């Protein structure tokens, strides 16, 4: 635990200092988006569709507008109209016209909870009352919620102009299938012909939510100069700025986004929701407008990760070599195209070296909220299928599931199904560490108990980051960055620059600033922040070192080539006894040439992918179908863990989200497509009482693309849990449950008891 622990020759990297922002967070002082309160603030609320699919015939806002305390009401007419345009936003590509239509429906509502109008009033209560008085005349249309139904000819169409884009061609007739891709490696037919064991199965996974505890929020102020300032909770302040710029038709220079502390996101705090509504209302009423979503609104209209239909087939030789694998992945995009099916496709077989693979992916619109990224988007669904089939093969071959995986583990240079070759990876190393772990070596006795294993892969992201580091005259550094800190990345960036400069982590003061104050920085997502913003911090540190060497040279009265930096000191190469500390140079900045400011912008290419292998023991109550998790061990390659505690935390958090996805979380709809369980009471995320401690093993196979070897760690831990649990449940009860969630009801049904 102590900050003094040194590993791998590092002074700061690999230690566990107390997080810079933690004091504010344990005392309640940290300011999140909903804690912003500007003088004169008024409050906005959204009117939402009660129908899953309907044409808006008319909207009558008169009664709402006449209410005392109501200041303004807007509908889609108050937003600029947009044409088709694709833009890269956060972790996905978005059509801006769809984005605007999702913010406020112009003609048609496409899901229960789709916004149709927004109200601004003197209090949230008045705004809520006014929302109830907005009269919308709907022509209700049949809704389609299931991807396979939505693909059928004659299914209700969400978009009359949506035509399937498939492998470079666009179909003639409209369809709910937005796109189709196919990736081929080798010859899958020949591969299956060689296989001596072939298994195949269909799977379904339910729509689930990211479930961050802090709802979306925005405070907008329209300034007299025509610019707008936005305080909000977001993973990507620059992504919010660019989306707002498009939706409001304002140049980015007129929009300042101030990212407040963020209460979780998991991929779902990139998209635009109430931000433009607050801005337009603020312009209309001339006062700051604050909008926060309720939990009901969160579950109805934000987030969800796509539900899916999956079919997969895998073949192996009798000696345990995977020779062929095929998959068809059909993902719910929700109301507008853009599910994570592509990422699912590139992850599904990637932990293994398989010469012949064929993957088909379909992105299908249905009458549900537009899906968004959720931690390794798309990969968890896919791994549920492939990792279950591998367990079936192991059972047929009577092979140990980790030995089998090791025999087929992907290594550097192996091609991925989508084309690229694996760089240096730690796939095998995580499997070995899982095999050697006391958990896996322990015996699991008892009736209705089972052990499950699964592996997972995630590509991780790179992107662009900026950092500025100001040297203070007391020898400390303030680090300015643009990556919202969702789980300790201020500190991991600070630790990396501290390592460069020979400072302690505590001697760097990191802060996340607004979009006017720092250079462009991609959002906190794709497991990229400690890698890319960390790299920017390192580069900014190196920039400081260069400048400091010059100052030292001045003080030593030597040419700069004769100054070296080692062990945290600047030395005179000619006379090593002559040294200057960082602090000494900092103190004399004013006399040696003025302030020292390091700066760096990066767009790194050397992203290191992540692998994980999980082992879980469960006990199933055969009378109730309830699953109790007895023990869970997660192994993951972090490349290099900058702050091991927060790497463990990412692993544990990802595992538990995966457990929720596996066992109880699901969106439940009625036949008309209305969501029934839009509360934390009935959308059942795991509580502390549902879990054991989550054991973690950090494997470190350094990523050559980063000075300290960092790989992203945030996402891959959510990939294996549903498959690991499915395998464990099978070994406990002897029945495979191919559908998520594996709820008590579903297990009872599988056992023939209900």
């Amino acid at each position, binding site marked *: 635990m102590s900050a003094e622990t040194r590993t791998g020759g590092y002074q700061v990297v690999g230690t566990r200092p107390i997080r810079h922002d933690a004091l504010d967070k344990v005392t309640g002082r940290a300011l999140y988006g909903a804690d912003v309160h500007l003088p004169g603030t008024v409050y906005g609320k959204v009117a939402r569709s009660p129908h899953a699919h309907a044409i808006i015939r008319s909207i009558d806002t008169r009664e709402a507008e006449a209410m005392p305390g109501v200041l303004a009401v807007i509908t889609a007419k108050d937003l600029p109209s947009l044409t088709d345009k694709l833009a890269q936003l956060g972790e996905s590509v978005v059509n801006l016209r769809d984005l605007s239509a999702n913010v406020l429906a112009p003609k048609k509502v496409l899901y229960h909870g789709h916004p149709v109008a927004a109200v601004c009033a003197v209090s949230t209560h008045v705004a809520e009352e006014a929302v109830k008085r907005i009269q919308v005349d709907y022509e209700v249309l049949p809704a389609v919620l299931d991807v396979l139904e939505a693909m059928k000819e004659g299914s209700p169409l969400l978009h009359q102009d949506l035509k399937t884009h498939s492998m470079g061609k666009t179909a003639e007739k409209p369809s709910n299938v937005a796109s189709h891709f196919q990736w081929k490696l080798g010859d899958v037919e020949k591969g299956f012909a060689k296989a001596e064991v072939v298994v195949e199965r269909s799977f379904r996974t339910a729509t689930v939510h990211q479930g961050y*505890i802090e709802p979306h929020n925005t405070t907008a102020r329209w300034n007299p100069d025509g610019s707008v300032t936005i305080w909000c909770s977001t993973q990507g302040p620059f992504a919010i700025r660019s989306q707002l710029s498009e939706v409001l038709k304002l140049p980015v220079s007129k929009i300042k986004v101030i990212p407040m502390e963020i209460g979780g996101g998991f991929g779902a705090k990139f998209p635009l929701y109430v931000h433009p509504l607050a801005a337009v209302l603020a312009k209309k009423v001339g006062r700051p407008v604050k909008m926060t979503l309720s939990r009901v609104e969160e579950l109805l209209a934000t987030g969800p990760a796509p539900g899916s239909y999956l079919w997969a087939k895998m073949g192996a030789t009798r000696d345990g070599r995977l020779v062929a694998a095929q998959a068809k992945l059909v993902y719910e995009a929700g109301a507008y195209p853009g599910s994570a099916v592509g990422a699912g496709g590139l992850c599904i077989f990637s932990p293994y070296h398989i010469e012949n693979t064929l993957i088909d992916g379909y992105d299908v619109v249905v009458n549900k909220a537009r899906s968004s990224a959720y931690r390794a988007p798309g990969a968890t669904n896919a791994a549920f299928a492939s990792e279950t089939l591998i367990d079936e093969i192991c059972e047929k071959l009577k092979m140990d599931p980790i030995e089998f995986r090791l025999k087929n583990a992907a290594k550097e240079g192996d091609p991925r199904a989508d084309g690229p070759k694996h760089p240096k990876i730690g796939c095998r190393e995580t499997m070995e560490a899982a095999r050697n772990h006391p958990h896996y070596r322990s015996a699991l006795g008892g009736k209705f108990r089972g052990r499950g294993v699964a592996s997972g892969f995630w590509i991780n992201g790179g992107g662009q980051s900026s950092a500025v580091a100001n040297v203070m005259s007391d020898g400390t550094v303030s680090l300015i960055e643009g990556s919202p800190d969702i789980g300790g990345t201020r500190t991991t960036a600070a630790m990396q620059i501290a390592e460069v400069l020979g400072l302690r982590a505590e001697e760097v003061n990191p802060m996340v600033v607004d979009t006017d104050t720092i250079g462009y920085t991609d959002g906190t997502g794709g497991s990229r922040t400690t890698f890319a913003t960390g790299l920017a911090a390192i580069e900014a540190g190196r920039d400081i070192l260069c400048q400091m060497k010059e100052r030292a040279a001045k003080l030593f009265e030597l040419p700069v080539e004769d100054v070296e930096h080692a062990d945290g000191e600047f030395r005179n190469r000619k006379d090593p006894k002559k040294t200057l500390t960082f602090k000494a140079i900092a103190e004399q900045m004013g006399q040696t040439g003025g302030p020292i400011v390091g700066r760096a912008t990066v767009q790194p290419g050397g992203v290191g992918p992540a692998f994980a292998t999980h082992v879980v023991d469960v006990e199933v109550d055969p009378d109730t179908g309830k699953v109790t998790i007895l023990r869970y061990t997660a192994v993951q390659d972090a490349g290099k863990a900058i702050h091991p505690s927060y790497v463990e935390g990412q692993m*544990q958090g990802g595992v*538990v989200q995966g457990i929720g996805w596996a066992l109880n979380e699901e969106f439940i709809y009625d036949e008309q497509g209305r969501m029934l369980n839009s509360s934390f009471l009935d959308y059942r995320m795991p509580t502390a009482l549902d879990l054991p401690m989550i054991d973690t093993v950090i494997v470190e196979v350094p990523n050559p693309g980063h000075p300290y070897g960092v790989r992203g760690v945030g996402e891959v831990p959510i990939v294996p849990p549903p498959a690991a649990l499915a395998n464990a449940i099978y070994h406990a009860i002897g029945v495979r449950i191919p559908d998520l969630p594996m709820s008590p009801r579903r297990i009872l049904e599988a056992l023939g008891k209900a």
Partner: protein
Amino acid sequence: MSKKIHVHTRINGEEVEFLCEPRQSLLEVLRDELGLTGAKEGCNNGNCGACNVVLDDRLVNSCLVLAVEVEGHEVTTVEGVASSKGLHPIQQKFLEHAALQCGVCTPGFIVAAKALLDRNPKPTEHQVRHWLAGNLCRCTGYDKIVRAVLDASACGSPGQK
């Protein structure tokens, strides 16, 4: 709008008076009227614990208490957990164990955990998990939170109020 009501209460040891509508929850008044934004709104229906405060020695969800109901009672929020002498041991252990990620559920957990240790200075792991079941955390998987609470109890933080 119904008439506002005058409420007289004690918050974090200080006498406080405020005006509120009957429909305003204690959480709303703490956050919007009194500037005590440590308690967070996560669900507004008693299922997440982010708005936890202590009302006369009982841990409650402030979203499920009407502000008018605290007339004559005493409220302690997360802002009242640390003393002028420094952090409460629970807060210190949260720091040391890295028991937070995004931190938005943290105030609720701190208030809840303190209420537990005030009552039961040496809880078992099961008791900690049971007590904290009304507090949702989506980031940590609870492991480090439970360890922090157990460690705080082992360090003998009992009764610090």
